[in-house]
């Protein structure tokens, strides 16, 4: 079996500062990989590189397309990458306003990708939007409201629905629950967990919160100063950390 995403030797510098150095990992369909680390560890840079938002200076990122086998991301044209980003990938931003059109209705937000792909039936668009709002546990009656009127948790759900409507096979998430109230976080994590399982999504979740990693991810990558210092099954990395930094990270977590 071919991994859905194969990353090798990823490297990125900003001037003289090395932000990512020699990062390798493979991701399989249905895998959820948590990338954890503190600020400045390079985890967000890693996410941006593998989602084609930032070009690495070295290394390869190969994505298994739906019908055309494995493709080197940067050997594709920008048009092809944009199409991938709209259909086969999802990207959930930390701040939902960045991932939504705040000045159009919730329904239009969910339907936009479908419209971009050629769906021209208003009734079907509305039906799909209603369906997805329900799946992310939002009140479908709010379909015509603008996200400006939504709470943070609701905006995040809307962002998730907007991304998943085209059934992407790979979803990138950047701190999807930071900034939300704890109770809202718990519900959202639960939603993400069941969606990734039910839809067989492969996902890369960047987080600084180890509890989120334990809940959502099968596998974990620990980043420090641009390097992946440890990789493995989530429970193994958290319960039996090998690397000194991982041990420090795990022992630093406050237990209420």
């Amino acid at each position, binding site marked *: 079996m071919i991994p859905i995403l194969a990353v090798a030797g990823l490297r990125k510098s900003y001037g003289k500062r090395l932000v990512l150095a020699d990062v390798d990992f493979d991701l399989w369909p249905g895998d959820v990989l948590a990338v954890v680390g503190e600020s400045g560890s390079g985890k967000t840079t890693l996410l941006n590189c593998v989602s084609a938002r930032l070009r690495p200076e070295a290394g390869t990122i190969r994505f298994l397309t739906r019908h055309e086998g494995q493709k080197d991301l940067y050997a594709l044209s920008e048009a092809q990458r944009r199409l991938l980003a709209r259909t086969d990938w999802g990207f959930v931003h930390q701040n939902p306003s960045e991932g939504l059109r705040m000045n159009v209705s919730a*329904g239009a937000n969910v339907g936009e990708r479908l419209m971009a792909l050629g769906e021209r039936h208003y009734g079907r668009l509305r039906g799909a939007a209603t369906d997805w709002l329900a799946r992310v546990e939002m009140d479908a009656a709010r379909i015509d409201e603008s996200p400006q009127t939504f709470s943070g948790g609701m905006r995040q759900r809307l962002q998730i629905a907007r991304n998943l409507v085209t059934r992407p096979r790979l979803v990138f998430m950047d701190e999807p629950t930071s900034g939300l109230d704890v109770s809202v976080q718990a519900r959202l994590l639960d939603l993400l967990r069941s969606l990734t399982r039910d839809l067989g999504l492969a996902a890369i979740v960047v987080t600084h919160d180890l509890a989120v990693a334990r809940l959502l991810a099968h596998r974990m990558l620990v980043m420090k100063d641009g390097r992946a210092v440890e990789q493995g099954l989530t429970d193994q990395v958290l319960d039996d950390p090998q690397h000194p930094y991982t041990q420090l990270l795990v022992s630093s977590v406050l237990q209420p």
Partner: protein
Amino acid sequence: MRDPHYAFAYLDERTKRMVRRALLKAVAIPGYQVPFGSREMPLPYGWGTGGIQVTASILGPKDVLKVIDQGADDTVNAVNIRRFFERTAGIATTERTREATILQTRHRIPETPLAERQIIVYQVPVPEPLQRLEPREAETRRMHALSDYGLMHVKLYEDIARYGHVSTTYDYPVLVNGRYVMAPSPIPKFDNPKIHMNPALQLFGAGREKRIYAVPPYTKVESLAFEDHPFEVQRWSRPCVLCGAVDSFLDEVVTDDRGGRMFVCSDTDYCGERRGRKAAA
């Protein structure tokens, strides 16, 4: 009589060549906005400088020019522009659609069908159909390049969700030759069907925004819509009171201060021609 102090049709020949190159590109890529070096004209932006530059660049001494504004030949703008070309080019002008070789228009397409070898020049204020939804030009350029028009349909979706129908009644966006989405200029949507498969060459000039685009003769042009909310044109319940036409775009004219109003054809030439025929009949 042509005023000898001006170059033929006001613009110098090199400028005209530059505009014609842009026009050729525009014709080669129907609906695509070609940037051009829009010149300073003796009237301000917003008064048709783009259309005038296009007309000036294609005008020859034997051409017959018709200029309309909102369908009428006798409004101030139409009169001024016509006089401008009479003075700087000395060409013949007409109010008869059938007799013109070049027609410059603001906000209407004539009711009388155009023929091959005629050219119609539209005055365009905002050439970018996505502008109100996405003000960043870098982004709209990319959308056109990648045929990424989801946002356009989002606008239509929003209208239907909010009003039950698409609320845009003029400058209604169209898909040209199955490829580019174009702003047809603020003509009423009633006129959109006329753009499709028109035997005449259609040229569009935006002076302030510095863009030129074109629809070659017999090009497929469809107004954007949803399958279950198809594009529809306006209809009036009454005919024109002057000529009795039931199929032309009607203007509402207020006749007194007690709510009296009448509906007359916006296209004065069309209306007049019909009345002439009726008188003759």
